[in-house]
């Protein structure tokens, strides 16, 4: 447990500027490996990063301010507005089905 905490503290304090990280879950469970997450900040678009087996992702953007995250999941592309800062920011996302389509919300 101590190692986990130390790791988390280290991860947080060494978070890069404009970094966003978190996990993606659906019905309380991680989405698993290979789900693509794309970011668009101002005019810049960033190539998709993939989640790992625990559904975690992290991406680095150059811009600070409002960004748009898109998740490619089961042939759908739900999106959400987030923000990027000097410090890294944790954005845990929850996938939900509404009217037959996936939507994204923050945990």
């Amino acid at each position, binding site marked *: 447990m101590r190692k986990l*905490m130390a790791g988390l503290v280290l991860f*947080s304090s060494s978070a890069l500027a404009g970094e966003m990280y978190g996990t993606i879950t659906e019905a309380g469970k991680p989405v698993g490996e290979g789900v693509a997450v794309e970011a668009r900040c101002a005019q810049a678009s960033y190539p998709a990063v993939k989640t790992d087996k625990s559904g975690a992702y992290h991406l680095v953007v150059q811009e600070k301010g*409002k960004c748009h995250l898109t998740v490619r999941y089961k042939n759908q592309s739900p999106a959400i507005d987030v923000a*990027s800062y000097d410090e890294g*920011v944790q954005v845990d996302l929850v996938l939900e089905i509404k009217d037959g389509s996936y939507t994204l919300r923050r*945990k």
Partner: protein
Amino acid sequence: MPQPKDGWDKLGIFLHPLGGLLTAISVAVVGLAGSQVIDRQQAKSTDARLYSELMSQRELAESTLRKDMLVSVIQSYLAPKEGSIDAHLLQLELLAYNFHDSLNLKPLFVDLSQQLRIHPGPGREEQHRRLKRIAREIADRQRFALELRGDSFRRTVDLQELAAQGKAGLALDPATVAVENVRSEINLRVLRADPSLQTIQVRLEVRPGAVDPGKTPEVTRAEFEVGFFDFPMIDSTHLANGQRCAVLLSAFGQETAELTTVCFPGEYASLKDRPYYDEVVDQLRSRASGSEH
């Protein structure tokens, strides 16, 4: 005329002295085993006593060291000196890393931050960054510890939208947290933001789910200011069910700010935040009734 002895009589004659011998052996074995058990228990209790004495001595030595350190650092911190901001930063860093879970260091952080603003000079920006880095590291450390026992969620505050809303403030998306099998709905309303001081005024509303079907859960409401120098273990809102919720400012940008809300069991609040007596009695009663069922 004596009757002739049958096999059973002969066996009885043979076993009679043997029975006495067996009884004597049994008593000796039981006595020996009993004394061994008693010896072992005594050895265990001596070990336990020795361990507890060693632990108490170590605790005492550590407490004395911490007390001496606290007095020394606080005295030198509060001594009026000119141009000693670097020394103050170092002293505050020492205090923060060693006493962050038992002392509210916000006044010292705020004071030093003000000093840095009032007395501009070379290296001030770096000093301010260092001050914020210490506060962030302590807040993150506390948050991680609390998240392991509680639940949390994060929200982004759109500062332009907040300004457009005026005095009504901006309601953030509600969230449900689960702490110790109690689910609570958390509503946050941001009332105003101060970009120069990087603080946000929030109203927190917590509606715990009903544990007892016959009882309506009490809603907790609190309004407070959140800045980078607020630490969740020290500065949290005491809920009616004994749990705590704290709101942290995780980031503050030009257009947006980031708030993290963490709710956790009351046992993990700092030493200075003691539970109310009736709350302790209620908890003991509910545990006792729970063990009966």
